[in-house]
């Protein structure tokens, strides 16, 4: 099957800065794909390479089998939802949504009908006559979405689409985007620095760092089996374990990771029992869970325990235990 988007050894260098460096990537048709990474990791440049706003310094990009290098943005069947929405302030909502059809020369009645349909799709029916300035942030986001979808793109690009929304709205939009993507079957590629957002929405996640992809995989794989220390650290709050520590438990001298919820915390001394002696240095109440900060002989660890369990006092000695299979060995060697 042809990939929706395919990168072969793609680089985009700005002078000495390697924004994207020799990247290989395949995004399957109909996939909800997340590009996750800190700012400056190259994820947005990647998105702009797909949109056509940037041209690769080297390598080949194809979109549904068609070569994309040198093709201007307006000749690509790809649409973008911009971070600041980029709605046209001088046009009303209906004309904003119909813009793509208007420049293609679609007849007025037809493009307005399609635009109304797109507005209904994002649950903003009847908002056509308003100006973008009269809408709330969440509504503008929906208009931007409708404006992109009305062109029936093969790939929809979303640049930090939920970044400007408040928490409640963000959670609602996450679900809505996800169900919209399922209903339409369009390939969604979205860029985010929020690991929670990436894990909850995407079918597959690519973790970016310094212009390279550190790991690509299903959210579960990324979360439970991080390939490198960077991924373990960036995607949530995995405990990164040094090779010495890992060797004691698994026999292999490699970096390891351990999810905080896999750690059991028992009161008492380590003497006789099999476990890691540690001291509780702090507790964070998170509602459904409590996050414990622990100090195991200089190694800083975090454990998450369900709410309601009996908690040791701060400063108390505890014994940590975990199942050996929950200790994940990373690809990164010592």
């Amino acid at each position, binding site marked *: 099957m042809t990939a929706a988007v395919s990168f072969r050894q793609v680089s985009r260098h700005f002078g000495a800065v390697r924004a994207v460096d020799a990247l290989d990537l395949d995004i399957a048709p109909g996939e909800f794909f997340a590009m996750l990474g800190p700012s400056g990791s190259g994820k947005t440049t990647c998105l702009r390479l797909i949109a056509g706003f940037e041209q690769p310094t080297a390598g080949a990009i194809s979109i549904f089998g068609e070569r994309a290098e040198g093709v201007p943005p*307006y*000749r690509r069947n*790809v649409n973008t939802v911009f971070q600041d929405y980029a*709605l*046209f302030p001088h046009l009303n909502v209906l004309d904003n949504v119909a813009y793509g059809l208007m*420049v293609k020369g679609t007849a007025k009645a037809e493009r307005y009908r399609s635009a109304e349909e797109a507005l209904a799709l994002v649950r903003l029916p009847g908002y056509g006559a308003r100006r973008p300035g009269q809408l709330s942030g969440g509504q503008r986001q929906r208009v931007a979405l409708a404006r992109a979808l009305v062109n029936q793109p093969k790939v929809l690009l979303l640049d930090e689409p939920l970044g400007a929304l408040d928490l409640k709205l963000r959670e609602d939009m996450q679900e809505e985007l996800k169900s919209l993507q399922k209903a339409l079957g369009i390939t969604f590629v979205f860029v985010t620095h929020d690991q929670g957002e990436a894990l909850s929405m995407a079918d597959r996640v690519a973790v970016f760092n310094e212009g390279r992809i550190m790991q690509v995989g299903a959210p579960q794989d990324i979360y439970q089996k991080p390939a490198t220390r960077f991924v373990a650290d960036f995607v949530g709050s995995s405990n990164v374990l040094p090779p010495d520590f890992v060797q004691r438990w698994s026999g292999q001298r490699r970096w390891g990771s351990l999810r905080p919820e896999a750690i059991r915390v028992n009161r008492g001394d380590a003497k006789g029992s099999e476990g890691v002696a540690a001291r509780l240095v702090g507790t964070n109440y998170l509602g459904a869970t409590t996050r414990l900060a622990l100090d195991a002989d200089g190694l800083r660890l975090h454990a998450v325990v369900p709410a309601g369990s009996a908690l040791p006092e701060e400063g108390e000695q505890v014994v940590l235990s975990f199942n050996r299979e929950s200790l994940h060995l990373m690809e990164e060697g010592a």
Partner: protein
Amino acid sequence: MRADRNQSAPLPLKIAATCGLLFLHLPILLIFVYAFTTEEKTFQWPLPGFTLQWFGVTWNRPDVWAALSLSVRVAAISTLIALILGTLCSAAVSRSKFFGREAISLLVILPIALPGIITGIALRSAFSLADIPFSFWTIVLGHATFCVVVVYNNAVARFRRTSGSMIEASYDLGADGFQTFRHVVLPNIATALLAGGMLAFALSFDEVIVTTFTAGQQQTVPIWMLEELIRPRQRPVTNVVAMVVVLVTLLPILFAYYLTRDGDQIAGSGK
């Protein structure tokens, strides 16, 4: 500071402010008043009599019409040149980064920072060096130097307020460069261009110094007025023309002011 808004200003300040405003504007009113006097050789106060005859006399003077028409044509064409060049230049400076960008934006603004007499002398010597005879077009060129600045300043300010991703959004939605300019860029900078154009027109219309250096035998309205003041013949005709000039230049400036004030709201509404 907000509490001060409801407080009345002290009386001496009010008197001083009133005197200042009168000092600024009374002479202009006087110009209007003298347009209705019956005395044609000197400016006599109080007016010896009231008449409307000078409006008719002005209407029938061919030299007035020649000067007015020349001024309007010069202002219109220099404004047109300024609109094209100023827009292009502001787009380049605000939309892209290139070597010497800051230098260009300084060089464009320089003509209004420089005294008009320098611009005038420079242009005159340049024209004679290149053997260009003084004509309508030399005046237009001289005026365009400072008209470009006005348009440029207005357009650059608007470009800075327009989100750059809007243009990318237009490309993204399938519009090519021309369509993007026509449907997105132009509507967003239109009021700024109109305002800049009107200011440029007004500036060009009452320009004296650069014009004296770049005009041949032709007289624009301000130059014609200077000549009239030296030769006392039908003096109130000058006042009638002055009234017309005030109207022709003041109205566009007021209109431009309202346009750019609205423009803030238009550009800000997308944020």
